[in-house]
């Protein structure tokens, strides 16, 4: 009997880990979470943070790790500055994107570039607490003691081709985003971890200026 129980426990644990996220359980009161998330986001006018991006290439058993600085300011303004091991700057300002790689500058209107438009929306949605209302995704929320995990599964055709799912891990303390993970269909993924977060820091508008 004990053996059967052990097997069942193992099976259940395995199932649990597959169906959910390790250490997380489905959030009990979704409405309460939504309200708290939106409320906290309302109070957050800006975020200044460091980030570490990890591109995991499963088939190649390789990881490309890059580091940078991140700024967010209401409304719809994001600046990501990669400084190691390569330099790359991206500024999102409303519906405009500015990109500067080692050599060249590029201005892209997100209206004309669907991929940037989507990434822009996801990023800003996460920061502004509106990710749960994005109808391009089917959303589930899980939680543990310290954090909540929002799972976004694309439902629109274009996004389905890009991602299997996007998960956003949120710190329960201040509802700020600590990890964004984009899972590709190939099994590769991109994980961005936000470190040394400074909420409502004074951020100059100039940082988001696009000529």
């Amino acid at each position, binding site marked *: 009997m004990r053996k059967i129980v052990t097997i069942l426990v193992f099976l259940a644990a395995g199932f649990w880990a597959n169906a959910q996220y390790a250490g997380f359980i489905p959030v009990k009161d979704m409405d309460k979470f939504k309200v708290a998330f939106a409320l906290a986001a309302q109070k957050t006018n800006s975020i200044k943070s460091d980030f570490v991006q990890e*591109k995991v290439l499963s088939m190649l058993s390789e990881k490309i790790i*890059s580091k940078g600085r991140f700024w967010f300011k209401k409304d719809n303004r994001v600046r990501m500055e990669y400084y190691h091991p*390569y330099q790359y700057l991206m500024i999102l300002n409303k519906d405009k994107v500015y990109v500067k790689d080692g050599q060249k500058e590029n201005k892209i209107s997100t209206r004309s570039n669907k991929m940037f438009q989507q990434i822009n929306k996801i990023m800003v949605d996460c920061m502004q607490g509106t990710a749960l209302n994005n109808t391009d995704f089917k959303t589930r929320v899980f939680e543990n003691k310290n954090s909540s995990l929002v799972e976004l599964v694309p439902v629109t055709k274009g996004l389905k081709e890009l991602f299997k799912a996007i998960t956003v891990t949120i710190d329960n303390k201040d509802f700020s985003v600590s990890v964004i993970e984009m899972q590709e269909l190939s099994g590769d993924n991109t994980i961005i971890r936000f470190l040394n977060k400074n909420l409502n820091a004074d951020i100059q508008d100039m940082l988001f200026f696009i000529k």
Partner: protein
Amino acid sequence: MQPVTADFRKLQQFKPVFTVALYNTQVDVAGNHLSGLLLIKRMPDSSLRMLFSNEMGFKFFDFEFGADGKFKVHSVIKQMNRKAVLKTLKNDLALILMERMDISTAFARKNNGLLYHIFPQKKGYHYYITDSSGNELVRLERASGKKIIAETVMLNYINGIPDTIGISHKTFEFNIGLKRIER
């Protein structure tokens, strides 16, 4: 060009020994600029994988040159998934890898003090051009019977891997610049 004899084995010193290398990549094609990261990795089965993504992790393509030299596309974004684009990239990359070098059909020519090591391909030729001694690689060329299609340089080898690679097409605007990133 004058027919000459050459020691083709000497070219082996220029063949890049890609274990794993990451390159900062700049592409200019027909007025458009694209930048990203190219990862080149030799796999345990001796195949070579080349994966190109942008700086934020968005993947453009994942190609493989098998141990038998066979080219395989693992993934490619819709915008690049055209026969002509894939063929051009395949041929450009094959020239750099220096794996399609059949010495039995190769011949050499001399011109302006440079030594041309010429390897006939299924279509056209691969030229590996050195100084007259054969000890310095000047440039690589991909040519049809009549004209040069693409010109390539591989510079500053460190532990068998070139630090800088440049590919420039002669028949239309398509330039690729690779600069190795120290991780």
